[in-house]
């Protein structure tokens, strides 16, 4: 018989090794991109227009494109997502209807992004005649992030102590007043965490954006203009072999934004937890 203590030591070592390896991958990916890109990122790169298809110049229009597209998709999806969550938790009881709605949201969450891309292309771009535009792109992305927002908002709303609702009702508040003045403000950090997650997903998405928002490298003039996001720009730079330097620099800006978003949502979550327990 092998000594169980010995087995334990071996097992723990292996487990630790696997964890270290995972962390090493993360460090490597971020380090690799930053080490090659950071040197080429400066204010000029961020604020100037690209020249020669991105071989030279900056990435200003793609930053604007990314900002507008992801913000707009959140603005479209958030009211629907939060509204659905409010309905499911506050306005109805567990029933066949809520189960069907949750099932629908789960199915939607499982659909691969390329399918959203196909759908956005055939529905918004072609059938509705919206062409490749900010509007088509953000609507399609909104479809894509809707389930995430529903789920996280639901969790956040559920975690608001039930007693708050009792208090609010006993003080003569209507259901909607209670939701608006007590439930939502207290669920806000949790809801924001979900929104930040979705924002990260919109920013990182490529296939859907190419299919629905196009890849025009100009600063958009209206919601019906096509745009190019940073992810798409990075993809095109890297794929067309236009400029590896610019590709790394774009990826650097992209990763730093994602990092910032993650930090903000982590901070929100911590604040949320400490507020609830304290």
């Amino acid at each position: 018989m092998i000594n169980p203590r010995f087995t334990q030591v071996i097992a723990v070592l292996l487990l630790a090794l696997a964890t270290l390896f995972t962390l090493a991958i993360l460090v490597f990916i971020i380090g690799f991109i930053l080490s090659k890109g950071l040197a080429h990122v400066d204010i000029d790169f961020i604020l100037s227009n690209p020249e020669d298809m991105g071989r030279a110049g900056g990435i200003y229009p793609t930053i604007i494109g990314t900002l507008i597209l992801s913000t707009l998709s959140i603005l479209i999806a958030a009211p629907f997502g939060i509204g659905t969550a409010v309905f499911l938790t506050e306005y109805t009881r567990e029933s066949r209807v809520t189960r069907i709605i949750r099932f629908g949201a789960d199915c939607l969450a499982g659909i691969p992004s390329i399918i959203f891309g196909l759908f956005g292309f055939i529905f918004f771009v072609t059938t509705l005649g919206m062409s490749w535009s900010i509007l088509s792109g953000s609507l399609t992305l909104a479809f894509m992030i809707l389930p995430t927002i529903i789920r996280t908002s639901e969790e956040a709303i559920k975690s608001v102590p039930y007693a708050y609702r009792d208090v609010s009702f006993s003080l003569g508040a209507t259901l909607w007043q209670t939701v608006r003045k007590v439930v939502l403000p207290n669920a806000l950090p949790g809801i924001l965490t979900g929104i930040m997650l979705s924002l990260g997903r919109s920013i990182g998405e490529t296939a859907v954006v190419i299919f629905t928002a196009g890849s025009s490298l100009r600063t958009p003039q209206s919601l019906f203009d096509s745009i190019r996001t940073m992810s798409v720009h990075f993809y095109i730079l890297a794929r067309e072999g236009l400029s590896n330097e610019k590709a790394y620099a774009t990826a650097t800006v992209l990763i730093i934004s994602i990092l910032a978003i993650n930090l903000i949502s982590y901070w929100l979550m911590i604040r949320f937890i400490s507020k609830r327990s304290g």
Partner: protein
Amino acid sequence: MKIFGENSIKNLLIVIAFSALTALFLILAFILLEGLPFIFNIGIKNFLLSSDWQPMAGKYGIFAMIVGSLWVTLGAIIVGVPLGLAGAIFLAEFLPRWMMRIIKPAIELLAGIPSVVYGFIGVMVLAPLIRDYIGGPGLSIMAASIILGIMILPTILSISIDSIKAVPQSYREGAFSLGATHWQTIHMATLPAAKSGIIAGIILGLGRAIGETMAVIMVAGNAVILPGSPLDSVRTLTANIALEMGYATGMHRQALFATGVVLLLIIMVLNYAATISIRNMNRKV
């Protein structure tokens, strides 16, 4: 007046609550309308079981791509599951809470990195390594599997951590009181109790792997063949859609939507499996 306000808010919320279902319905309707007639036109057998894909010559067989998707996904599981599971056990059982609080979000950051960045690193770093040290063209099942395995790590990790944490402390105490070591406790008491949660996590990761597009296009090589070894290049269903969508018209475009239908079917089956195993978990605890 006020009562009317409350009611109209409720009605508005009911309408909003059906947005997710409406979205799902719209997506299914448009993909199916565009794809299904094509499948029946050229015949299910010709479409699903032939691996002859030459859209210009009117040959639309996606068998090689179905196999490609499955291979790549299987590879991702082989890479991602042991790492993810080991990491989850270590983080949940052996690390103090405060360290976990730092490391877990760091690992979740992996999930936030855009897939094109993964793909790019696959092309720049991984594929040359495979070509030079193992062989083949580099852009291969192996490269795609490793990249996808890394991409699904965060999913597997966080769900596994949650389900390990959800195992009641009494299970562990039971094992400890019988004189088991920490490791024995884990593999005799904790893991079996967390099993269905972990499986659900793996299935969700699987769904992510099979649905991933950009990273796979970049590293899988996209050849339409039935692969003979992990070093061969393959094309997945998702890659097929994204590669040719820009050019496709008429039959060709319908064929790509039909590819989407097949992809959806595979995902639905996976989701169903995940739901069942999550339900099992809930029943047990």
